[in-house]
């Protein structure tokens, strides 16, 4: 009986600890830069600051380069505000929930949020210094979408491979560096390769610097007002 009580007590502590860990970090800001190169010679550089508060569920980009503008992602809408003129665009549902900010703040980055998605874990293998998991779409989606492979290195998400339904790789994402702030880890550099159906390749490097968590200095950005349109 004592043993059962002890085990119960222990499991309670573990549960409370994981809940506390998950709720310890609620907002994040960072300087960001996205460098992009297409095989057709086009390139782009976008820089500024990004803000996210998981209670507000708004991703706010204060873009400084090339042009000064605000990108506000809220629900399934993106507002692009330039010279105080807002423009509305539809974005794919789930954009905020599956963002790197939301996943990191909710401690779900390691499985890329796939645990609670339309994918199911099929296989886990170990190769070299990586633990590689294969996620396949649930039966009803198998004809539309392909597998996803995730590799974890040093207990952190390292790579994501995305395949189409015909098992052709369409995307590769590598989390090359992380920033550690106390017990919180956030990707500092993400290298992304996208392969389009036309055979074009898009290479992208996203960098996050000066990352601050639970920061109140720039409070107005975290709850940026949604423009009335």
């Amino acid at each position, binding site marked *: 009986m004592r043993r059962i009580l002890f085990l119960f007590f222990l499991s309670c502590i573990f549960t409370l600890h994981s809940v506390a860990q998950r709720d310890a970090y609620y907002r994040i800001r960072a300087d960001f830069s996205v*460098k992009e190169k297409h095989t057709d010679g086009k390139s782009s550089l976008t820089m500024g600051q990004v803000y996210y508060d998981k209670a507000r569920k708004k*991703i706010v980009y204060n873009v400084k380069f090339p042009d000064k503008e605000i990108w506000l992602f809220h629900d399934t809408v993106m507002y692009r505000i330039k010279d105080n003129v807002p423009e509305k665009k539809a974005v*794919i549902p789930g954009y905020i929930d599956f963002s790197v900010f939301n996943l990191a703040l909710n401690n779900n980055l390691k499985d890329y949020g796939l645990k609670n998605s339309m994918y199911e874990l099929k296989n886990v293998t170990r*190769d070299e210094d990586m633990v590689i998991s294969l996620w396949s779409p649930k039966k009803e989606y198998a004809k539309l*979408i*392909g597998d996803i492979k995730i590799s974890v290195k040093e207990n952190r998400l390292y790579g*994501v491979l*995305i395949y189409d339904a015909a098992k052709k790789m369409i995307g590769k994402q590598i989390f090359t560096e992380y920033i550690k702030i106390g017990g919180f880890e956030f990707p500092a550099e993400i290298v992304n390769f996208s392969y389009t159906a036309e055979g074009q390749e898009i290479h992208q490097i996203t960098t996050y610097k000066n990352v601050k968590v639970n920061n109140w200095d720039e409070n107005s950005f975290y709850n940026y007002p949604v423009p009335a349109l």
Partner: protein
Amino acid sequence: MKIKVLLIALISVLVSLQPLMAGEADDFKFDRQQVQDEFADLSRLEQTVEQNNFMSLFEMKNNNLLGAEFASMNLGTMMPEAALGIPGFWWGCVLGIVGILVVYLVTDNDRDEVKSAFTGCIVGTVLQVGFYLIYYLVILDNVL
């Protein structure tokens, strides 16, 4: 004796599985130096923007802060949807709205095209619901 046989069987299973598992890690590898070289010009521009306190392209041009190397660059505007460093395609994959994400990638987020992709998505959803309705009706029919 039994343990020996079991051990041999286990080893042979592991050995036979080895080729299946080998090479998995290779898929995640890439030439980092090559990527850094590819982005060298943009990295230099990034540093210049940082050094100039995140001035806009227009301000930098006006203040002659943009070197000739960058002035001649074919700089386009990035798709905001890719701002997270995660391709739209992935989101579509996870969420299943394949048509929309293809449009996002291929047409550079052309509004009309996206609109029609949404329409296609709705049609697809209706078809899917129809499929499940028929599926469950057939099951119910067989059960009853």
